[in-house]
């Protein structure tokens, strides 16, 4: 080995090139994810008991009359697929917002009880108050905000967010689930499929009436969160550093919580708390994208992809039809355990 001391290349250049590569990789990943979402979305419109070729599907979507396909694709598959995308985007975006803000992958809204609070409120409004549509969504959002507030009050008293918050959230999630079960058993002759929607999440029987409020919420609230991207990344460095960087910490946090909870609540009111999507989307996106900037967009796309694929798998791949939440639950729960194992191994003080 000859020890030739090469003069270090201009480190400014190196950093600049690295940044360009990183940004390019990030764009590539986002593009691929977006294309995948579109492909699976299209596939879920075509695949079913009868297969419709892309031409038929496109004509139906454009509003033309195609015998057979107009009903099956237009009334059954389209709202379902749209709701899958909307719910997936909402859950993914809200989940990664919480995970980023609280700096902990376990702090996703479905683990810490916010989603189950929204679900319990929604089913309460439907069964006991006989409401439907937007009123249900508003009830869900109020309950989810309430849960978030309670968590904040309970867990932030010692100024630390950590395992304690997560355990408290798990306790709250248990309460939310038992309230849901209580309401369902009160409903008397509830049918089992409907109950599963509120316990694990399901896209069965999706209609436009349920889908549209969630879609509107996504269109309104997603830009709010995306506009907060820079502030959220700064919050990851800790409150003090963030405010030293000129971020208004409290304002950012309140805005982010309200927007994320809104997304969650509207999606939950439409299809129930689809298990573990908001928990899974962030870490998967982080795996794919690497440490290349904000995870908000990739995680939202991963969420949509997860829900679409899980719904297809649940409907057609397993012999009998499973609601989407059962599929994501079976996928997500082992990952939760894996995450805990890894954190424990690494010597984290969980």
């Amino acid at each position, binding site marked *: 080995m000859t020890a030739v001391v090469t003069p270090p290349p201009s480190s400014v250049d190196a950093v600049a090139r690295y940044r360009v590569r990183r940004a390019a990789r990030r764009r590539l990943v986002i593009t691929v994810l977006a294309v995948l979402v579109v492909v699976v979305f299209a596939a879920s419109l075509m695949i079913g008991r009868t297969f419709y070729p892309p031409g038929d599907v496109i004509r139906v979507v454009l509003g033309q009359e195609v015998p057979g396909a107009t009903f099956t694709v237009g009334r059954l598959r389209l709202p379902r697929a749209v709701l899958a995308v909307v719910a997936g985007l909402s859950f993914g975006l809200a989940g990664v917002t919480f995970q980023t803000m609280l700096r902990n992958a376990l702090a996703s809204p479905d683990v810490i009880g916010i989603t189950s609070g929204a679900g319990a409120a929604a089913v309460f409004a439907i069964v006991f108050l006989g409401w439907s549509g937007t009123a249900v969504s508003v009830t869900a959002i109020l309950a989810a905000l309430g849960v978030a507030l309670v968590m904040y009050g*309970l867990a932030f008293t010692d100024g630390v967010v950590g*395992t304690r918050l997560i355990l408290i959230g*798990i*306790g709250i999630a248990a309460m939310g689930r*038992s309230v849901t*079960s209580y309401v369902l058993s009160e409903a008397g002759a509830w049918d089992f499929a409907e109950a599963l929607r509120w316990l694990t999440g399901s896209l069965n029987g999706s209609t436009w009436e349920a889908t549209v409020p969630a879609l509107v919420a996504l269109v309104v609230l997603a830009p709010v969160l995306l506009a907060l991207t820079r502030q959220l990344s700064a919050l990851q460095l800790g409150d003090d550093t963030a405010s030293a960087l000129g971020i208004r910490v409290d304002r950012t946090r309140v805005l982010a919580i309200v927007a994320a909870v809104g997304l969650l609540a509207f999606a939950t009111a439409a299809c129930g708390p689809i298990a573990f999507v908001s928990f899974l989307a962030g870490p998967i996106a982080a795996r794919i994208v690497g440490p290349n900037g904000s995870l908000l967009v990739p995680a939202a796309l991963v969420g949509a992809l997860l829900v679409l694929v899980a719904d297809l798998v649940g409907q057609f791949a397993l012999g009998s039809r*499973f609601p989407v939440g059962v599929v994501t639950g079976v996928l997500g*729960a082992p990952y*939760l355990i894996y995450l805990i194992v890894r954190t424990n191994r690494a010597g984290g003080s969980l």
Partner: protein
Amino acid sequence: MTQVDTVPAPGAAPAQRPGPVRRPGSVRVLWLLVVVAVLAALLAASVAVGSRAVGWSEILAALGGSQETIGEAAVTKRIPRTVLAAVVGAALGLSGAVMQGVTRNPLADPGVLGINMGASLAVVVGLAWLGLSSATAIVWTAILGAALAAVFVYAVGSLGRGGPTPLKLALAGTATSAALVSFVTAVALPRGDIAESIQSWEIGGVGGASFRGLGSVAPFLVVGFAVSLLSARALNSLALGDELAAGLGERVVLARGVAALGSVLLCGAATAIAGPIGFVGLVVPHVCRLLVGVDHRWLLPFTALTGACLLIASDVLGRIVARPDEIDVGIITALIGAPFFIYIVRRQKVREL
């Protein structure tokens, strides 16, 4: 993540929790009488109260064996249910107390640690895939599932630095529990015959009680009660810490294993007959420690009695608030127990017991 539980808040004085230590004998006897009286009252209430209002004369006639009127028949159906609630409650309360002693962990509970759900999944798999039908086989399966879940959760929870801390164990347990619920749903859903009662394998209840079902788990429960109660002395030694216990002549690993076995037998058998009921084993030992102190020779029988009281009370409550329907007792215990769980998590010195 920060080790909140070991670092005292800045400026806080070293915690001087008065702590339940030893209670004089007279106090314990007094509390024993109170708990027995409460249990008797609840037993009576559980037979008397239900979806259908029944007069005292009919209740007395039914207790004498008569089933002539509808009221008497209703009361006759409430008797096995009451017995079941008492037995399951006692088993879960005792099981939780032993688990808290074995793991020296104030958050230990067969529900929180995912052990009940392990039993539940094993039973569902046995019913759906292995075609189990005999009651005894189901109980064995449940106990096997409970044991596997217990070993798994303990293994996951003790990885890494510091061994099985309460927070790590509780987190591993609840995560495992969530995983197992998903699997229970996934396994049971395609099977219409099991899916009918799928809810009962996710949230326990005592509604469908019969003396025959109770008879099939009775041997397991008896062994579980005996093993658990007999390990009281060993648990007292273990409470001092492994080294001190070994110094006192306790065979630590053996004692811990036997006590854990008793506890798993109890919660596995209870789940086999009533489904997974959470939080009873969490709440009851904490309350009992306040009443009679930390001596396991008193604590363990007390938790059995109090557990029976709690479960009967929850069951009666579930029948009253939802008339004419009824709420599964597992829902009520979760509603009572989850806030309690939060309270314990929030307490500063969660690491010590």
